[in-house]
């Protein structure tokens, strides 16, 4: 084990000397309590817009944090991770249509199916490194899109309509809100567990130098495939919830590459390979999205803004917000969740 620790320290020297602080627990606790209490604002007036925005933010926190397990810790960039998001949506949607099972119940199952698919994808691509790996994830996305577009049982490119849940309309958004909140917290905790496990150590060793990691006795193949599978779970879960909340499923909702780009962008803007990074990135990008759509009034230009943010971040702060602040020892304790 000593060898792996050396590799790890080379990549993250700062983590060892961190001063333990309780302030982050206060801040995190306050945020979670606020999030839990937010739907009660319903009694004050119509807060559907705020609830919807928060639900979307939770979903992206779960997506970006999951992407980060493979793209951040392991250093394997997937540009096709929305495949698992789509699979989750369709698995839960079909279970609802065929068997009448509520996606609120089947969401974890959809996550497991996505995970199984992640395992298969990992087994196909584990021999590819760096660029070939990235290209194979793009190809995976296009293969799945082609299948979904032409699979008549799943509605093809026209998609499927799902029945709405039988709640009172004015409270309709609340169960989705809580379910996404649980998924987001789950994904962040998963990221934190991975970060602090021997498994996460192995992933970071792979990210810093795969050949050395292999030499140090890490079964890199096994760990990469596992990272791929684990990072597919929560996208499946939130895909199931999101499809149900829209009440229809269509390949373009889940499978356009812009969805994958979002996951990548959020993790990179926030800071790849950190626990807090994808969360900060997701909240920031959702806020910028809302602002840019209302200011520019066009979703096409919003796409260009997404691209521009990615380029600017890579050119000027390749470590992202959390990574850059940490490098300069300016990271406030409440943002240091590692």
């Amino acid at each position, binding site marked *: 084990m000593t060898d792996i620790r050396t590799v790890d320290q080379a990549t993250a020297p700062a983590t060892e000397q961190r001063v333990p602080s309780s302030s982050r627990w206060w801040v995190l606790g306050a945020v979670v309590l606020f999030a839990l209490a937010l739907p009660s604002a319903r009694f004050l007036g119509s807060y559907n817009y705020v609830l919807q925005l928060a639900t979307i933010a939770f979903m992206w926190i779960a997506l970006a944090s999951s992407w980060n397990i493979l793209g951040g810790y392991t*250093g394997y*960039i997937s*540009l096709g991770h929305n495949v698992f998001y789509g699979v989750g949506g369709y698995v839960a949607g079909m279970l609802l249509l065929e068997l009448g099972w509520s996606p609120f119940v089947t969401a974890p199952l959809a996550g497991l199916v996505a995970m199984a698919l992640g395992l298969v994808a990992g087994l*196909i*691509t584990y*021999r*590819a*490194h*760096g*660029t*070939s790996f*990235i*290209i*194979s994830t*793009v*190809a*995976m*996305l*296009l*293969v799945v899109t*082609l299948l979904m*577009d*032409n699979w008549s049982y799943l509605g093809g490119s026209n998609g499927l309509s799902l029945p709405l849940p039988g709640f009172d309309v004015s409270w309709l958004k609340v169960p989705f809100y809580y379910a996404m909140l649980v998924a987001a917290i789950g994904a962040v905790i998963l990221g934190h567990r991975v970060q602090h496990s021997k498994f996460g150590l192995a992933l970071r060793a792979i990210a810093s130098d*795969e*050949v050395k990691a292999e030499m140090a006795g890490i079964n890199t193949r096994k760990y990469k495939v596992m990272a791929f599978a684990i990072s597919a779970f929560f996208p499946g879960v939130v895909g199931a919830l999101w499809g149900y909340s829209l009440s229809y499923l269509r390949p373009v909702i889940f499978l356009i*590459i*812009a969805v994958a*780009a979002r996951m*990548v962008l959020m993790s*990179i803007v926030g800071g790849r390979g950190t626990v807090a990074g994808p969360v900060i990135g997701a909240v920031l990008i959702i806020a910028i999205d809302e602002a840019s759509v209302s200011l520019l009034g*066009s979703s*096409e*230009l*919003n*796409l*260009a*803004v*997404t*691209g*521009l*943010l*990615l*380029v600017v971040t*890579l*050119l000027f702060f*390749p470590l992202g917000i959390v990574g850059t602040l940490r490098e300069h020892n300016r990271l406030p304790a409440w943002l240091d969740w590692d």
Partner: protein
Amino acid sequence: MTQVQVLILGLLLGGVYALMASGLTLLFGVMRVVNLAHAAFIVLAAFLSFFLWEGAGIDPLVSLVVTVPVFFLLGMAIYRTVFPRIEGSPRFTEMTVLMTFGFAFILEGLMSKYFTGIFRQTKPPYAQDAIILGDLYVPTGQLYAAITSAVFLVALWAFLKYTRTGYGVRATMQNRDAAQLVGVDVRRVSTVAFGMGMALAGAAGALISFVFPFYPSRHWQWIAILLSLVVLGGMGSLKGAVVGALGLAVISSFVSTHIGAVWAPITFFGALFLMLMVKPEGLFGKKARA
């Protein structure tokens, strides 16, 4: 349709794909840059040809004299402004993938906004015509496109083989550090090579403007196909890109005839996955440096 007919259509298509992929593989070979925006630039060039055709009635084959130099200059400018900044980063290639991924979205967003998402195509008379040979037919549009592609590829090969700069480019492809040591101005060679890669995108754009209908978001489909055949041929190998393009286009044309046109792209991705499992460095690739 006879099998020979399918073969002919596949080869013509492959010729165009080979040109589209050649710029991509050149950039990777010389600079280790993976340009995910390559197809987006091709679509941009196709729009340039389209507007020259619609606005001034200029034939897309003639518009090559505009798109090629414009994209050559554009390429050199992009290389000089962006890439020196990230040259020293430890995971340079991965960085270029993400950076050009961003470029692709910028281009797609701007094109969708200002050129709209309507299907476009330049329609010179030869694009709807065909040469009939017995029971075979050869669509002239695709034939001209394939011939022009072949001319560009031969010119590229001759440039790399017989000119001093081309010599420097090949030296840089083989070993960047060693080329620098023996006195190749790697920076200048890279700038020129980047310009040439983009000029090839400019040429491909003018050709596809009458071969395929195009719209801004179509580039994802193309880049995935191009990257698949570049990986298949071996990243950075021009010979690999051409062989991969012709081979896969022929197979996909058979798939398209016998199984269904929508499944044709699966050929490229299926071949990519097979290659990754069997020989990850590709047909003509050097063992990857991790």
